[in-house]
């Protein structure tokens, strides 16, 4: 490829992909070599999505200049080999299956054998050879031409991203696929992109050949900031009211905003895309006072002269005050928007609807207590009993529940032993997750609770048998319903009929404390370790 067209390609890409500017020329030069290295591995642990777009853009650019063909495959999508084969073959030949033609795959000039191309690796290799090398006719006569490369074959690329999932889905395909150039005798280049390094996912035994590894560097402050700036729209669209957060006159203010964002958030968040998301969440709220000011100016001037309103930026002092006003909301934003507990648009809307003070909590927080609000009486007892069963060891049951019937509380004599090993026991239940318990233990603890709380209908001697049965069925049905609500989880094989079913309780301490209050039980009396 001529050097000048390569330089112009690189220049075009640098403006749109400023977060990875040093990788761009390296990649572009590699892919325009003649021939490119047969197997290329890109390791980008920070922003693989951005690098995917970059590679696709480079390949697009190559296609428009040199008419090379390429296929882009998502490693998540190919969970059977056939899907992979037909995606690659269709894309390399610019073929889209259409409904009218029966969703057929690309067949080329060789309709009879095209079906066999999807059957196995050999068929796939054959398919690539037939479709990418038109000079080589179907009869492979090897008595004349040089067997290494045919003159008419041009470079083609197969780019797989999310490779770590591809390796999990199709492990047997990795070794032959990385040797595509050798197997087809054509100038194929295989490009893998992953957030994980090649050594972690390569097949053992050295079956795959060694790639040319390119590790993308972490973007510097300058590069990240210029990436964030490039996302701001560069032109106003005519049909939107000029008083909106994305008016291009606001761009210098946005630059200051982005600098502040980077300074605050970059210790916690490194990925440029995440920073862009947080910028999108915060920017409307940040710029709202300025817009309000413009709006009032517009209303004021409408009475005099509607056309002479100039929307200007706030001066330095105003800007600093704006920043100071805004600073407490960075933390809320990072805690809610970054883990996606609240969406960016939801966050900015909630800020708009609140008053100009920025301390109100935005809506959209998960309400954990909603899980336990619709439970029936029996279900509440069952949750309580199962929480106690999950968080106490089985040996302590007798100690706790045995004493209850004598009317005393939990003996504090166990306190010294508890204090010495409290860290370990604490570690084992509250931090390692709930323990599992068999159904029998749950019923026993439930019965003990109900007996103590004097709400046990079984005490009454003249309950008839059907009512007893109905009561028992109620308990079991309630347990099943709680499993469906995901407050209890059934562990172990579901089809094991022998042995009691084993459960775990996933209600949080707070939820159970509320329920206990509701039912009139002191929860801490029944827990071996008090949280």
């Amino acid at each position, binding site marked *: 490829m001529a050097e000048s067209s390569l330089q112009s390609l690189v220049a075009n890409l640098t403006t749109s992909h400023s977060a990875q500017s040093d990788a761009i020329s390296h990649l572009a030069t590699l892919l325009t070599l003649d021939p490119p290295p047969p197997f290329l591995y890109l390791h980008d642990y920070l922003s693989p999505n951005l690098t995917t777009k970059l590679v696709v853009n480079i390949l697009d650019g190559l296609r428009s200049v040199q008419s090379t063909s390429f296929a882009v495959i998502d490693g998540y999508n190919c969970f059977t080999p056939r899907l992979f084969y037909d995606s690659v073959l269709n894309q390399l030949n610019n073929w889209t299956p259409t409904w009218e033609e029966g969703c057929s795959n690309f067949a080329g000039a060789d309709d009879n054998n095209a079906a066999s191309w999807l059957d196995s690796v050999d068929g796939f290799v054959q398919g690539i050879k037939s479709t990418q090398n038109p000079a080589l006719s179907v009869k*492979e*006569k090897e008595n004349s031409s040089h067997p290494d490369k045919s003159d008419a074959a041009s470079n083609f690329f197969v780019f797989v991203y999310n490779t*770590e999932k591809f390796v999990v889905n199709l492990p047997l395909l990795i070794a032959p696929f990385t040797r595509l150039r050798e197997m087809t005798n054509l100038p194929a280049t295989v490009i893998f992109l992953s957030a994980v390094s090649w050594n972690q996912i390569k097949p053992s035994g050295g079956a795959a050949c060694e790639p040319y590894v390119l*590790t993308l560097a972490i973007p510097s402050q300058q590069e990240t900031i210029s990436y964030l700036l490039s996302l701001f729209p560069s032109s106003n669209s005519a049909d939107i009211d000029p008083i909106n957060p994305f008016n291009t006159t606001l761009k210098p203010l946005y630059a200051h905003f982005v600098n502040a964002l980077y300074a605050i958030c*970059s*210790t916690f968040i490194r990925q440029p895309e995440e920073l862009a998301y947080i910028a999108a969440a915060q920017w409307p709220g940040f710029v709202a006072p300025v817009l309000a000011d413009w709006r009032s100016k517009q209303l004021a001037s409408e009475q005099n002269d509607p056309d002479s309103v100039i929307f200007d930026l706030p001066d330095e002092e105003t800007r600093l005050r704006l920043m100071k006003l805004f600073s407490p909301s960075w933390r809320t934003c990072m805690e809610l928007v*970054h883990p996606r507990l609240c969406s960016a648009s939801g966050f900015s809307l909630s800020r708009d609807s609140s008053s100009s003070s920025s301390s109100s909590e935005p809506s959209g927080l998960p309400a954990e207590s909603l899980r336990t609000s619709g439970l029936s009486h029996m279900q509440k007892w069952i949750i309580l009993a199962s929480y106690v069963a999950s968080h106490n060891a089985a040996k302590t049951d007798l100690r706790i529940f045995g004493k209850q019937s004598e009317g005393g509380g939990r003996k504090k004599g166990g306190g010294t032993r508890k204090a010495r090993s409290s860290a370990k026991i604490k570690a084992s239940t509250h931090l390692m997750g709930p323990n599992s318990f068999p159904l029998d233990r749950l019923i026993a603890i439930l019965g003990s609770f109900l007996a103590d709380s004097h709400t046990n209908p079984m005490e009454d001697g003249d309950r008839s048998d059907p009512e007893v049965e109905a009561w028992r069925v109620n308990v079991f049905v309630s347990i099943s319903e709680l499993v469906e609500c995901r407050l209890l*989880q059934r562990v172990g094989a579901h089809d094991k009929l022998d042995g009691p079913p084993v459960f775990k309780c996933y209600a949080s301490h707070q939820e159970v404390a509320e329920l206990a209050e509701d039912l009139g039980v002191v929860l801490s009396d029944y827990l071996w370790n008090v949280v």
Partner: protein
Amino acid sequence: MIEEPDEGPLVLPPSVPEHLREAFWAQKRAVLQALQDPPNIEGVDVGGRGKALAQLSELLAGSAVRDEGNSCLILGPKGSGKTRVIEEALRELKPRPIIVRLSGHAQINDRLAMKEIARQVSSQLGTSWGQEEDEEMINVETNDFAALPPPAHLPALISSLPSLPRPTIIVMDAFDLFTGHARQALLYCLLDTVQSIRVGEGHKGLAVIGVTSRLDTLTLLEKRVKSRFSHRTIRVGTPATLEEFTGLAKACLTVPPPATSKEWNKIWLASVQRFFESKSVVDWFAETFSIVRSVPLLRNALMSKVVMLKPEAPWLSDDLPRPESNFPQLRNLSYPTAVLLIAAAHRLTSGQAIFTFAALESDFKEYVRIVQSAPVQLAGGSVGMAFENLVEAQIFESTTAASSNFDKRYNKYRCAIEREEIRLAIDRTGQTNLKKWFSRSL
């Protein structure tokens, strides 16, 4: 700017002058081409390739010209050039025999392998081979290999290979994988056919060449297969001495482009000389050679330097790439990630190699409570995102299936990196409070 003592004072300009730019680009292209396809060095047989080529050519000539039955095994480490030697030997054969290329990676059982043999032979012969009964149904011009013979016929095809009009060469890549097939049926048939070829009975020759990097392949063969194998092994190796290794690199870098000027040649050779004389380059070659004498590694390292040359910075700099860690993010940790790693390291030293997110979070909160000087109080949210990033990067490996827990915070993980690596990573962040926490014993 450097003085070149041998050829009189020669100054390397900081960037390439205009009139030499064409030569620069041509040189870069030629060097990259040579790196992909290393040239032969005069008078040096790198890795014994020349000898291997001679032996193989002799063997193939025996089968192709004198109609013998031959078998051999080509052994050598990965990347030492075994396939290249075979291709060179095959290129020289006249008249051209039928060449069948199999690969143990692609054909994972004998049925696939035999289908592939039938397909390749049919396409090279131009007829549909093995279909003696149904000749009138076959249209020779278009359907060369439309229908393969039924599976029962396939073993018989191998024994009919010598009766074809041309000699056949079968190259089997990843030969050791074929020994894992059921009863080694394919190998048995092939080697049996090879052994039973008697010269002069009107048969054409057959050669079976196995290629593998596994040195103990012969012990994997069954007794009956082994006895039919000729035990001829051709070894291809890596460069034997440091001088050969460096000489190979030098030969690739100084390959002359097709049309060049003497002025450019002098400058380029001087820059390459300077490169090879620099101490860090010499050290790099010595270290790499002492650990692994791999030509692909050398090639990738040099390519990464040559690719980045441009007219403004045209001379090779002496910082050759060092092997990278599997986890480059350790060089630049974000605060929540560092916190999680320290908590995991502490759990490891206290004997709990398996932890959950809830455990790490509570450790951090405990630390903050004791020290009361953490820079920012983080709620669970962004620490949770950092945790998920660590899981995706496979730094935290899960020890149970992901769907076994309803609550994600209680999934069990273990840390894949050692305490020492974590210590280095924390030191690099330069934050003293983190360093203090790391070295603090709980």
